[in-house]
C-alpha cells in the first residue's frame, strides 16, 4: 500500500482521465444507435446490412483501430480522442443490435393497439416502442459500459492517458502494486457504473420492477450472452 499512498495524486489523475475517455463513448453509442436500430426495425432489408456492418466493426481489434484512426483523422497517435472514437464505434456496433432487438421485442399487439388509439408514428415510437424496448436497451448498454471501461486501458500501450498507464508503467518498473491498483480501479469504476445504470433503469422503467425472478434471470443472462 506504500506505493498507493505515495502516488495518490497520480492515481486520481489517471482515474479522472479514464472517466473522461470512457464515459462519452457510452453515452454517444446509446444515442447514435437509436436511429440505426429504428432503421433496422422499420426497413427489414436495411436490418441485415446494418447488423452485418456492426458485427464487422466489432471484429476490428482495438489496438489496430487505435493506430488506424489517427491516420484517418489526422490526430496524434497519443490523442485521447482516438480512444473515444474507437470505443464509440464498438459501442455503436453493440447497441445497434440491442436497439433493433429491443424494438423488435415489443409485442405487436401493443404496437397495433397504440396505432389504433391514434398515436402518430413519431409519438408512438417515443411514447410506446422505445420505452418498452427499455429492458433490452439497458442490458445492451450495461455490456457496452463494462467493456468500454475495461478496453480504455488498451490505450496505455500507446501512451494514451488513463488507468492503462498504471499497467505499462508498472510493467516497466516491475511494480505489482501499481498494476493491481489499476485492475482494482477499473473493476470498481465498471461496477459503480453498472450500478448507476441499473438504478437509472429502475427509476426510468418502474413497470419492470415487478418482474418475476424468472424474467429477471433471463434478462441477466441476455446481458451475459450478448
Amino acid at each position, binding site marked *: 500500500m506504500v506505493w498507493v499512498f505515495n502516488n495518490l495524486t497520480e492515481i486520481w489523475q489517471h482515474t479522472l482521465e479514464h472517466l473522461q475517455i470512457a464515459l462519452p463513448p457510452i453515452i454517444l453509442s446509446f444515442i447514435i444507435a437509436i436511429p440505426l436500430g429504428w432503421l433496422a426495425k422499420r426497413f427489414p432489408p436495411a436490418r441485415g446490412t446494418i447488423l452485418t456492418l456492426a458485427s464487422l466493426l466489432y471484429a476490428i481489434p*482495438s489496438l489496430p483501430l487505435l493506430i488506424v484512426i489517427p491516420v484517418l483523422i489526422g490526430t496524434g497517435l497519443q490523442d485521447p480522442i482516438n480512444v473515444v472514437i474507437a470505443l464509440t464505434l464498438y459501442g455503436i456496433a453493440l447497441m445497434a443490435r440491442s436497439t433493433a432487438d429491443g424494438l423488435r421485442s415489443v409485442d405487436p399487439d401493443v404496437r397495433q393497439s397504440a396505432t389504433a388509439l391514434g398515436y402518430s408514428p413519431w409519438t408512438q415510437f417515443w411514447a410506446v416502442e422505445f420505452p418498452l424496448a427499455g429492458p433490452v436497451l439497458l442490458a445492451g448498454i450495461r455490456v457496452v459500459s463494462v467493456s468500454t471501461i*475495461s478496453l480504455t486501458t488498451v490505450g496505455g500501450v500507446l501512451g494514451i492517458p488513463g488507468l492503462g498507464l498504471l499497467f505499462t508503467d508498472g510493467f516497466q518498473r516491475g511494480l505489482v502494486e501499481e498494476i*493491481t491498483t489499476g*485492475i482494482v480501479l477499473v473493476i470498481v469504476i465498471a461496477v459503480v457504473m453498472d450500478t448507476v445504470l441499473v438504478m437509472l433503469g429502475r427509476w426510468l422503467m418502474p413497470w419492470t420492477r415487478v418482474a418475476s425472478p424468472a424474467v429477471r434471470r433471463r434478462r441477466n443472462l441476455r446481458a451475459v450472452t450478448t
Partner: protein
Amino acid sequence: MNIFAEGIAWLFDPAHYGGVDGIDTRIGEHIMISVIVLAIAAVIAIPVGYLIGHTGRGRVIVVVSGGVRALPTLGLMILIALNVGVGLEAPVIAFVVLAVPSILAGAYAGFDAVDRRTIDAARAVGMTEWQIVTKVEIPLGLPLLMGGLRSASLQVIATATLADYVGAGGLGHFLFLGLQTRDYPQMLAGSIVVVLLALFSELLFAILERLVVPAGVRAGERADNQEDVRAKSVRSRTATG
C-alpha cells in the same frame, strides 16, 4: 491515404516473409496462441456450462463469470507476466480468463434454451439423464454454443495483439515494433492482417453456427417464417379490407 498504400506495400514486400520475423511466422504464432487459448477455455467452460444447464443449479456462476468482462485483460496479462516471466504463459492464462465467460454462457444458454417440455418428454419415454444430455440437449444447444465460441474467438484474436507486449510474439509484434520506430506502414500492415484474421474467424464460425442447426429446428424456423408471412398478409388484408 498514402500511408495505407505504404502499409499494403509493406505487406506485399517479399522481404517481410520467412524467418523469425516474417509475416507468415507471426500469423502462425497468432493463430497458435488463439487456438491454444480457445481449446483450454473450451475444455474448462463447456463441461461446466453443460452441467449448470442440465441441472439448473449454479446459474450464479454464469452471471458472475460474465462480470469477469470488467477485468482489464491487459492489466491481468502484465500482472501474470510479472509473476511467471515474459513469454507465452502469461498471455495464454489471461486470454483464457477472457474467453471462458463467453463459451460458458454459450454452453449454458444452449441447454437452457431447450424447451423444458421436450426434456420432460424425453425423460418420460425413458431416456437416462446421460441420454437426455447427449441426444437432446447437446444437439439442440450446439448453435448457441457455437455463438459463444464465435465471440470468444473474436475476442481472443483481437486481444492476442497484446501478447507481444510481454514478448509472446504474434501479429502484435509489428504494431509494437512499428510503434518504437514510428514505422507507420509496418503498424498498418500488422493491423490489416489482424483485422483479416478476425473477419476470417467470424466467417468461419458464422458458417459453423449455421451448419450445426439441426435440420428439424431449421425446418421449424422456416415454418415460423411462413407463418409470419401468412399472418402478415392476413393482417394487411384485414387492414385494407
